[in-house]
């Protein structure tokens, strides 16, 4: 690992995005528009908006970063630039950390916008600190980046990469407790949801929603999400091969 190479990679990824303002606008604005929509869908029951809104603040960065990273790294693989980079003195960790930094930076902006909008404009009622919401959102974004990076190794085209979203993200979305509390699910589904990282992302958000202080459960949830992100990033690094057939 080399800090300068990691930072150069992160700067390069951001520079690429800067030439694509439409993507940036979509990444930053779509979550805000969805929250706005949700607020008025649940116009009659603000409590539902509180619960779902807080969960979504954790889910949006995960989904966005998953999509962006899986496509971006797939392009890196198919354009030959990955082969070129790995034939150069660039560590796999430098590349992955560079991507994680660049997309993490975007995720921070996205989360600040979405959280700010939800708390101050849409009246999302959160008992805990907004900073904790932001922390969970950032970890979720990191998890999304990690999953996207990992999945891109198994996609041969952009078509396949996009299809991995319903395959990897939707089951987690259904089981994470967004639609119904996890302990009310069929026991088999509940135990599956216990091993899916998004469940802990949503649990973490709900802890902040309900408790004024940092709870033990909150710490456990964030550690699990962060641990999963690091684990999947390491798996992603293992899929980068200097020698290919």
């Amino acid at each position: 690992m080399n800090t300068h190479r990691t930072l150069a990679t992160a700067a390069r990824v951001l520079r690429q995005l800067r030439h694509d303002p439409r993507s940036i606008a979509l990444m930053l604005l779509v979550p805000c528009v969805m929250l706005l929509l949700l607020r008025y869908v649940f116009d009659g029951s603000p409590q539902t908006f509180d619960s779902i809104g807080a969960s979504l603040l954790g889910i949006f960065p995960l989904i966005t970063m998953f999509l962006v990273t899986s496509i971006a790294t797939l392009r890196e693989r198919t354009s030959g630039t990955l082969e070129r980079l790995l034939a150069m003195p660039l560590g796999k960790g430098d590349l992955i950390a560079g991507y994680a930094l660049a997309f993490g930076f975007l995720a921070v902006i996205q989360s600040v916008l979405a959280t700010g909008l939800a708390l101050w404009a849409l009246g999302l009622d959160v008992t805990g600190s907004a900073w904790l919401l932001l922390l969970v959102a950032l970890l979720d974004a990191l998890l999304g980046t990690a999953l996207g990076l990992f999945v891109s190794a198994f996609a041969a085209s952009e078509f396949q990469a996009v299809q991995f979203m319903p395959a990897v993200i939707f089951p987690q979305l259904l089981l994470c407790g967004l639609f119904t509390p996890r302990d009310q699910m069929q026991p088999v589904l509940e135990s599956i949801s216990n091993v899916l990282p998004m469940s802990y992302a949503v649990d973490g958000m709900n802890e902040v929603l309900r408790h004024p202080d940092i709870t033990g459960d909150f710490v456990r949830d964030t550690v699990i999400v962060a641990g999963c992100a690091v684990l999947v990033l390491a798996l992603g690094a293992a899929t980068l091969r200097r020698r290919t057939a």
Partner: protein
Amino acid sequence: MMNIAEPPAIEARDLTVVRGPRTVLRDLTFTVPKGQITGLLGPSGCGKSTLMRATVGTQAKVTGTLNVLDHPAGAPSLRSRIGYVTQHPSVYDDLTVRQNLDYFAAVLDPGRGTAAQRRHDHVTRVIDDVDLATHADALAGNLSGGQRSRVSLAVALLGAPELLVLDEPTVGLDPVLRRDLWNLFHSIAADRGTTILVSSHVMDEAERCHRLLLMREGELLADDTPQALRTRTASETVEAAFLHLVDEAVAAQKFPVISAPTRSPR
């Protein structure tokens, strides 16, 4: 002529590469001398790219011996000493020419201060080398095919590598550009002492190389100078010499008893 005492830039013994069910390279034995331009020629699909990927260390399932600049191919210490141009331009389409080079330069020579100044000089030099100064701030994706392949070449020239591995760098270029690039290759080899391994399936480019490796179906037909090849086969051009050798090899396959298969007759 080549110096006997100096070790070769590339040394291959019984080099074999398998891709899936197919043996792409079969027991290749050859050397590439330092400071010269060695052309790797043969029809499409004969294994040129695979041999180049093995040399730069990105090819899997390589058996036999392959030493590059006195290290086994793919050794980490080689990564900053070899410049490699893939067949398709491998640059970022959504970055400008200069931004592309800035990034790859930062990978090769990271750091701030003097390193940043050095990088800036290198980037400016290679942009001039490939004659893209007027397009330095254009997005790579907006350039023509030939211009993009020159950006890709410029990346390989960064950091003054000791060995340049160029996979069909002149494909799709007009005659003027091709001549300019070959002049550039010659000046790089002569002035900087760089070893160049360049592949092509255009036989007239063979005449511009110091040495030639002629390949067909994963095997070496010849390893010689263009002059010696023409003389030995009594041919006017390298193309005619190549066809002569192909006919010879086909005949050897059909009548193995009459004519023993010679791989590298010298």
